[in-house]
């Protein structure tokens, strides 16, 4: 059996780029969309760049999120472009704010989501190691990476258990703090237990911070990586710094 057959079957990526590239792209993309200047001067360009993360979600088969993202962004763009400005309407103020959040912040969050979901853990740790990050940084990040999944699963289960107990948000509208507590306490307990178990498991498999590790990862920067890095860095410098 060749090495190829071990490649992650869940994610047969069309876009094969390194974790470092994704990280840099996420950074420049979120900084670019966050900047208010771009929105006033180049609204169409901003729209184009803010849908990039949703299109990337197609590569990890998150079709639902992709469609939702595209619809939301379009709606937000329409609100900020076509609604009459300079009115005192409270509702319109809220709409503007929501639109700003969707256009300026959501793309960065989704790019980060894509970055983490589309990277296998060995690729990520290897990439970070090549960036000369210390183990004291890499190990917590890789654990967080894993946690992301288990917390999501735990959270879903807790919500379902609450629903079965009739502890819904609507029924307890007068006491939202209590509902929050009901969610957080089991979540913390489960997370702590997972953290302990995972740490113990890693130790019984011989993980020691600072020791020399090998890796099965092929992580390295290719031509496409450099193109994407320069493209996003260029966009950021041209539109945000020079304008």
């Amino acid at each position, binding site marked *: 059996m060749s090495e190829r057959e071990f490649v992650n079957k869940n994610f047969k990526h069309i876009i094969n780029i390194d974790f470092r590239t994704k990280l840099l792209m996420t950074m420049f993309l979120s900084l670019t969309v966050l900047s208010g200047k771009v929105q006033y001067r180049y609204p169409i360009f901003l729209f184009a760049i803010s849908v990039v993360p949703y299109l990337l979600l197609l590569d990890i088969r998150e079709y639902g999120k992709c469609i939702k993202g595209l619809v939301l962004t379009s709606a937000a763009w329409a609100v900020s472009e076509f609604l009459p400005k300079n009115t005192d309407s409270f509702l319109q103020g809220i709409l503007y704010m929501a639109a700003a959040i969707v256009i300026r912040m959501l793309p960065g969050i989704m790019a980060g989501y894509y970055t983490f979901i589309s990277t296998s853990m060995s690729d990520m740790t290897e990439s970070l190691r090549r960036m000369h990050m210390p183990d004291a940084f890499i190990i917590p990040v890789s654990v967080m990476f894993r946690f992301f*999944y288990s917390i999501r699963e735990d959270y879903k*289960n807790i919500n379902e258990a609450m629903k079965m*107990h009739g502890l819904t948000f609507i029924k307890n509208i007068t006491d939202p703090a209590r509902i929050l507590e*009901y969610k957080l306490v089991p979540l913390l307990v489960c997370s702590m237990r997972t953290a302990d178990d995972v740490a113990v498991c890693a130790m019984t498999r011989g993980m020691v911070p600072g020791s020399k590790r090998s890796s099965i990862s092929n992580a390295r920067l290719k031509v496409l990586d450099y193109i994407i890095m320069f493209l996003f860095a260029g966009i950021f410098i041209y539109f945000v710094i020079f304008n």
Partner: protein
Amino acid sequence: MLELKGISLSYEKVCILSGINAEFKHGEVNVITGNSGCGKSSLIKLINGIVPYIDKAEVSGDIILEGISLQDKNIVDRSRHISSVFQNPKTQFYALDTTDEMAFALENRGVFKEEIFNKIMFYSGLLGTRNLMGRNIFRLSGGEKQMIAITAVSCMEQQVYLFDEPSSSLDIKAMENLKEAILKLKELDKIIIIAEHRLSYLRDIIDNLFIIKDGNMVKFESGGINDDICAEYGLRMLKKVKKEELSKESTSVADLFANESKNISAGYDKNLCNDTDVLYCRDFKYRYGDHEVFNFDIYFKKGVHFIIGSNGVGKTSFIRCLCGLSRGFKGKIYYGRHRVRRPPDIISLVMQDVNYQLFTESVWDEISIVSDDDVKKESILKDFGLSDKKDLHPQSLSGGEKQRLAIALCAASKKPVVILDEPTSGLCRNSMYKTADFINAMRDDGKTVIVISHDYEFIKYCRGNIVEFKGREIKAL
């Protein structure tokens, strides 16, 4: 050879093990058993170093592997010789996909990439997990996760393999796979030590059985192991309870695609249509991706109903649809001829992992969510042996107590339907009998109890209607 010499262990002055001596030889399957809390898990943890390095305890005695004492070595040092497979398949992974997971331990040792792949290939082939390579671990079933855990530790090529209740969340087929994997390790001349309640699946391969009781450990060789010993020490049965042994008259097979002869009744005579306390599930159709999981109608009368069937046939999906947790599900539920629009109004659910369903600050607050009747609450807590724990935080209870509390909530609640998902996973004989008694008490109280279980020993003891789910998955085999 791994030797234990005069091992004593106590947690906060409570003595768990006192002066245990044992020898575990290469190529033998050693099983350690005993009731819940007897210290078998502690013994496993003592060998791999979790006790005393993580779980603080006072330990004396010595552990000797091939003439070398392990006592002053930490977990990482011991991991060069000892592999551990833990109870909970959910939390014994470091990576997200299976290939990474298998490579993880070897990467830690700095083994070259080519060699890592060679080892993964060899052991995944040997243990039959090659088809699981490169998959997202979070999407695997409990049995598949456990097999990945075993393959991952096998790649380390250690001397000693420790298993801490490896079967607790497995179905019957997965337990067979586990047994095969253990046999393979035995053929490789490894030292195998398994802490386990359920002995039936290991029966044919046990070389030595160690029973811990009151801090002492007794050894039985394979010839001397019989059901009398199990009865004497209150252990789970050695003999496998077969499906055919379960009471016949109350068994019904639910063909999950019974579109034409649609109605399947579980202990319910359709002529008794006047019966008002029947749970009727209509138009239960569920698809997962392109795959139709089930499409049927089913009735449940008052009483206890066990749902059996192999993993992946749709038992859990059925329960989720019944509880209204499945989004987009269109089936209708009737109870006592009335349409139930919000299933949580009539159904209490005990999840497999009860940690998710304990919310409040004390046991009393917890039970107060479901009932306002103080007298009833008191009496139920007393029945479940929890009245002296009333003011404790639910999350501070032991695993068994948490589960009892979750069942107590169902008993205290006015909701007429109770659903339990695998209530006996990881329970010793006594706790299992207790759970069965609680279930029977709820039946006597006039509730409809639906239990998903793989544990035939439990089903046989509990007695109830049995509904076997058969779907396309089974037919294909």
